[in-house]
């Protein structure tokens, strides 16, 4: 067997070799070295197996999307631990924030003149929604993050990241809607953005309480 013939069958070679191949490897140091090198590369490759993990926000984003699409449905009596009763100080935030955000979005949609994104506005529930371009987080987001941190400190960073992402989404959506108030797609985009934020609030309080 020549080196050329050996190399031709090399891609198909498994752990076992024919007698002819064994004989060639015994007598040809170049092919023997080649096989040894390729095996070493393969072996070393196995040591590179998954060690890294994606950050927690990846799952959070997946969960948000699944809930939005209705793929996650609440299971009756699924054995999940229900959150303990908490003070109304935190609990009021969930429905109020959700309703306020969505209502604000609806009002914005119906108005002909959408306020400039930089203008500070507050909805009746005290939720600042337009002032999202200033440094740091809106005060209600800070309040939410403090509530999360008080109960589950390890989740705070992930939720902060989520809130920043969804706030950026709201900013983009508001800009698009502002640029073309008659664009139905942009308006829908903006409603989706508010709904996502409401969902983040709901999840943050629900999880941190567990």
């Amino acid at each position: 067997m020549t080196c050329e013939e050996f190399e031709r069958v090399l891609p198909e070679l498994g752990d076992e070799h024919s007698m002819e191949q064994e004989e060639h490897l015994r007598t040809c140091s170049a092919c023997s070295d080649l096989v040894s090198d390729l095996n070493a590369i393969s072996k070393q490759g196995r040591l590179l197996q998954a060690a890294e993990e994606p950050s927690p926000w990846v799952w959070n984003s997946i969960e948000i999307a699944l809930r939005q699409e209705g793929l996650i449905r609440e299971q009756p009596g699924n054995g999940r631990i229900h959150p303990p009763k908490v003070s109304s100080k935190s609990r009021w935030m969930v429905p109020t924030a959700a309703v306020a955000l969505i209502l604000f979005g609806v009002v914005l949609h119906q108005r002909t003149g959408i306020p400039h994104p930089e203008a500070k506005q507050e909805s009746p529930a005290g939720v600042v929604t337009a002032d999202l371009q200033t440094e740091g987080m809106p005060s209600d987001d800070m309040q939410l993050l403090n509530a999360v941190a008080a109960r589950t400190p390890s989740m705070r960073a992930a939720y902060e990241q989520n809130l920043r992402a969804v706030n950026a989404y709201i900013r983009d959506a508001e800009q698009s809607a502002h640029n073309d108030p008659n664009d139905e797609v942009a308006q829908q985009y903006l409603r989706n953005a508010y709904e996502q934020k409401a969902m983040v609030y709901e999840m943050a309080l629900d999880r941190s309480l567990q």
Partner: protein
Amino acid sequence: MTDAKKQQGRLSEAEAIERAKQGDAAAFESLYNLHKRRVYSLCLRMTANTAAAEDLTQEAFLQLFRKIGTFRGESAFSTWLHRMAVNVVLMQLRKKGLAVVPLEENIETEDESPRKEPGGDDPRLAGSIDRMQLQRSIDSLPPGYRMIFLLHDVEGYEHNEIAEMVGCSIGNSKSQLHKARMKLREILKTSRAEKATKP
């Protein structure tokens, strides 16, 4: 892992799949936690970018979960998932205009094929492959070779599984793997030679 534990693991995954089909949030999360490392690792090694890898991981899982109702168990769940991850990665690479080696048998030009250097005693690589160096070398492989190498030598898939995932023949998978390894050998030897000549 013992057989009993493997069996238990399989039952848990099967249970999680059935519950996920019913919309159970905990089941989705369980499936995600079972497979996130391998999917993310594949995406990361293909993109060499953490943010891009996380986006692709998210997309792969979302596509999987949207279609989970259609999973009938004909193939292993992990194979199904990795097929989605591979598709998501390949689509991303194509969007960026990166040339992906076509996964059909292709005729290489002289310039493309990894050469076997004639003559000269060259010490074996065995025992001297640095892990970081191998990782860098993998990053420099053409995307098509890189994909097959990652799936086979890093993730441990068999050629029949890879063929199903990427949509090529078993023979082609073997051929691409061999070329990937030959290319890596060439890169590693060149790198070692360069190090040896440095003062």
